[in-house]
């Protein structure tokens, strides 16, 4: 009996100490990890789509509450007007989730650009969604009202040859981002106004 209690006590104490220590560590490293992600993964992609923005969109970002989760919104300023927002989005690709950033021009409701940030697609095939600029360039200027689909599905995006699944995933991610944008639009407009830029 005594041994039984000892086992339970030792395991409990170990788990509690470990869990407590790790949750403190998470609070400590969380903001640093987010910064690293911003600088090394999302930052370059975001700056590439909004390279003419008068303010750095990575610095010029805010968080917005969307149900349970917080979303990062990046704002691009053109001709003195903060009229472009970037939303993050993910969709299921061929191998794993494909993460992307989607820039939307708020004034004329068009896509300003799309860039893939994280993926595990096949090098040389699906990976071109990130590396081949002519693929992502197709999205720029498309109005939000037209469904974003590859041409095989009746849309007007030419899929990467040999990587239709990845191309579909990018389209699905863009569609999700547009849906989210329409849903959050009033909140976004208010928030941008209150930023005063």
């Amino acid at each position, binding site marked *: 009996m005594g041994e039984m209690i000892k086992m339970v006590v*030792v*395991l409990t104490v170990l788990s509690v100490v470990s869990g407590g220590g790790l949750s403190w560590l998470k609070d400590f490293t969380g903001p640093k990890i987010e910064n690293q992600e911003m600088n*090394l993964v999302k930052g370059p992609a975001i700056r590439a789509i909004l390279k003419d923005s008068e303010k750095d969109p990575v610095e010029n970002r805010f968080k917005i509450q969307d149900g349970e989760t917080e979303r990062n919104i990046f704002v691009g300023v053109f001709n003195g007007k903060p009229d472009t927002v970037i939303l993050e989005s993910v969709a299921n690709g061929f191998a794993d989730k494909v993460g992307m950033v989607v820039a939307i021009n708020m004034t004329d409701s068009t896509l300003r650009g799309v860039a893939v940030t994280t993926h595990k697609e096949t090098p040389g095939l699906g990976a071109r969604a990130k590396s081949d600029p002519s693929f992502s360039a197709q999205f720029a200027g498309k109005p939000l009202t037209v469904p974003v689909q590859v041409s095989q599905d009746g849309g007007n995006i030419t899929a990467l040859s040999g990587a239709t699944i990845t191309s579909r995933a990018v389209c699905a991610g863009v569609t999700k981002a547009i849906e989210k944008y329409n849903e959050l639009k009033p909140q976004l407009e208010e928030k941008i106004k209150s930023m005063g830029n």
Partner: protein
Amino acid sequence: MAKSIVAEFTKGLWKEIPPFRLVLGLCPTLGVTTSMKNGIGMGLATTFVLLCSNILVSLLRKVIPSKVRIACFIIIIATFVIVVEQMMAAYAYTLFMDLGVFIPLIVVNCIVLGRAEAFASKNGIATSAADGLGIGVGFTLSLASLGAVRELLGTGSLKGDIFGFLPYHFSNIFGSSFEPFGFAVQAPGAFIALGLMLCAMNLIPSK
């Protein structure tokens, strides 16, 4: 006493060097050694986990009931692995991305659990720390040398840094006419490079 601490440390460097003499921990050995940089990063991460878990297991060896010792060891090891993972993500993000799933997999690295079970749970703190550090440094050296061989053959140059410090860059070591042997940095190249290094090490008799 001092002599045995030194002996425990040095055995990990040659006599019991993990991937070559013990042929343990082959999953990260084959998986991450596509470059010297990744090999060193993985080796140092494993060394940290080995050292900390050996010290803690040795410290708690009289408290841990023998029936649940493996569970306790795993909790301790897993905790330190998460510490390494979080710190690496916070301070060496590109390395963290390169190593990917192999960092969490240190939890199931048989070297770490093996040292906790076979050594730290039976010995004092100082010798356990020396043992952990020795095996860890040996593992780091093995991964670094295997990584260097593969990177050299695969790309013809060595390039990188160690956790953002000590950048090194040696390009075109074999001269500009060298055609990179891309096979060496792919998965089968890992087996062949490891096999050749094992063979070379076995040619040197161990005392």
